[in-house]
């Protein structure tokens, strides 16, 4: 008899607003924690009935393996996340995961730029947790519309571990569209000089599509490798329905067909993604 995986009913430990419209949800989910890697996501059932029907994909934001706790950082975007926001400590949440293919853990000595845009920065915290013990250094670049939406500066709010961000090894910089914090302009303005100055060996990015596309263009220009985490509408989350299609290129740079964001992604090599216009 094979031992089967299943969705877990994780107890909600905490669920509070940490920035404007952004909430942090801690769950008791030891099995998910054990298996999780940075960049992976969980598929969350927000309603107990059929409305809304589908699960919602949310990146794993933080993991405390010792305690078997994990956190999601989510923006209240629509009906599903609004229902999530109403969950109280003690409630149980149906969570499937960890799912997908995350970031490659960089080799020791590497200098990295981690670029996050808006809520897209959620998985970078977990990545920083995993890098904390490793000899990896570089920059965390966080972009947002304005100060209130900036995620990375609010990361310590996720728990005690300011040191997880390993500020000794990672320099934090912010950019906002309205200039209310850090650089006044897109976060790519912060990335370009680092690439031009050969200050980083690789770039990992997550955030809105436009930002990722701009990051990829810079990486191509400066011939720096990188990885980007994509979002796409999902059905199953496990690779069965083929809903979450992302067009990628093969080794030769020619279109090689659609990959599944939920299995081959959400993290893809920056040079593999074909940024076809969405209709």
């Amino acid at each position, binding site marked *: 008899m094979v031992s*089967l995986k299943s969705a877990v009913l994780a107890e909600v430990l905490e669920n509070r607003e940490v920035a404007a419209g952004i909430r942090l949800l801690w769950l008791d989910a030891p099995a998910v924690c054990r298996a999780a890697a940075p960049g992976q996501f969980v598929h969350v059932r927000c309603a107990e009935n059929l409305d809304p*029907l589908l699960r919602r994909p949310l990146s794993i934001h933080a993991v405390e393996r010792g305690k078997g706790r994990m956190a999601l950082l989510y923006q209240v975007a629509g009906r599903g996340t609004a229902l999530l926001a109403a969950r109280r400590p003690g409630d149980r949440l149906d969570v499937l995961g960890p799912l997908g293919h995350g970031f490659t853990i960089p080799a020791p000595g590497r200098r990295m730029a981690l670029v996050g845009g808006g809520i897209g920065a959620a998985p970078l915290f977990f990545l920083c947790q995993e890098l904390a013990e490793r000899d990896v250094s570089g920059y965390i670049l966080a972009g947002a519309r304005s100060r209130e939406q900036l995620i990375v500066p609010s990361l310590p709010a996720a728990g005690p571990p300011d040191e997880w961000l390993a500020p000794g090894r990672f320099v934090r910089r912010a950019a906002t569209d309205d200039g209310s914090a850090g650089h006044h302009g897109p976060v790519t303005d912060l990335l370009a000089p680092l690439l031009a100055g050969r200050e980083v060996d690789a770039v990992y990015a997550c955030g809105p599509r436009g930002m990722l596309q701009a990051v990829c263009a810079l990486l191509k220009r400066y011939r720096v490798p990188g990885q980007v985490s994509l979002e796409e509408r999902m059905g199953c989350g496990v690779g069965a*329905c083929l809903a979450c299609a992302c067009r990628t290129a093969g080794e030769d740079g020619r279109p090689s067909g659609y990959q599944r964001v939920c299995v081959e992604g959400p993290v893809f090599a920056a040079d593999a993604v074909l940024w076809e216009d969405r209709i």
Partner: protein
Amino acid sequence: MKNPVTTASGTFGFGPEYAPYVDLNRLGAIVVKGTTLKPRAGNPPPRIVETPAGILNAIGLQNPGVEHFIAEALPYLRQFDLPVIVNIAGDTEDDYARLAARLERAPGVAGLEVNISCPNVHKGGLQFGVDPEAAAGVVRAVKAVTTRPVIVKLSPNVTSIVEIAEAAAAAGADALSMINTLLGMAIDIKHRRPFLANVTGGLSGPAVRPVAVRAVWQVYRAVKLPIIGMGGVVTAADALELIMAGATAVAVGTASFVNPRAAMDVIDGLEKFMTDNGVRDINELVGAAHGKDGK
């Protein structure tokens, strides 16, 4: 079949995707993703959108093609004690015939489900599913080259599903499956454009169950072939609606996305219903809602 529960084509991949969650040996059968002669890239995203108690999908029959299926997917599935039903789709009668002929030579194919009803490919079969003549043509072409049971999958997007069912039966179908998705659409009002890149999509999930039950009911009364019922089955109670309407087996589709173990839960629930109600053989329940005026 060990039990009357199978998976709906396109919702369960080729098996490995759900294998971590579901003991494939327990399924009555698996119906794999629609397979075509050549690999098919499918439609651009977005391919899915949620609707009340349902989803619209427009995958566009993305699949690696029949050769890849035979080389990769089939050997994997043959590890299990599990009848494999291959859902086939084509643009022409000849496509279907060639697919059936190719699969005839592949060991481990328990049956063919002929998809004449996919609404998401422009030439991909919908025309067959809405026209009795065309449907019969496809069925005859497939029957001519296969010894495997041929299940014809019907579309609900027709004035009379009975008419198509009768044509398929007359052309030699061994069983019928219904329903494929309802043709639907959603608008992204923020951007004032269709939500799906493909414009229209196929509606599935609990929302369509009443249409599926009606289709099974009507066809059961008109055609003496076994029916595989599907459309919105989430629980054993839903499966029982289709069975009592006349389905010999049921398929779980969209529900697996919500609950990866949905098919298992339906199997367990049917067993419990039978025990609780002293039903020895599930066939006692098939068509039970027709009473004495049924067939």
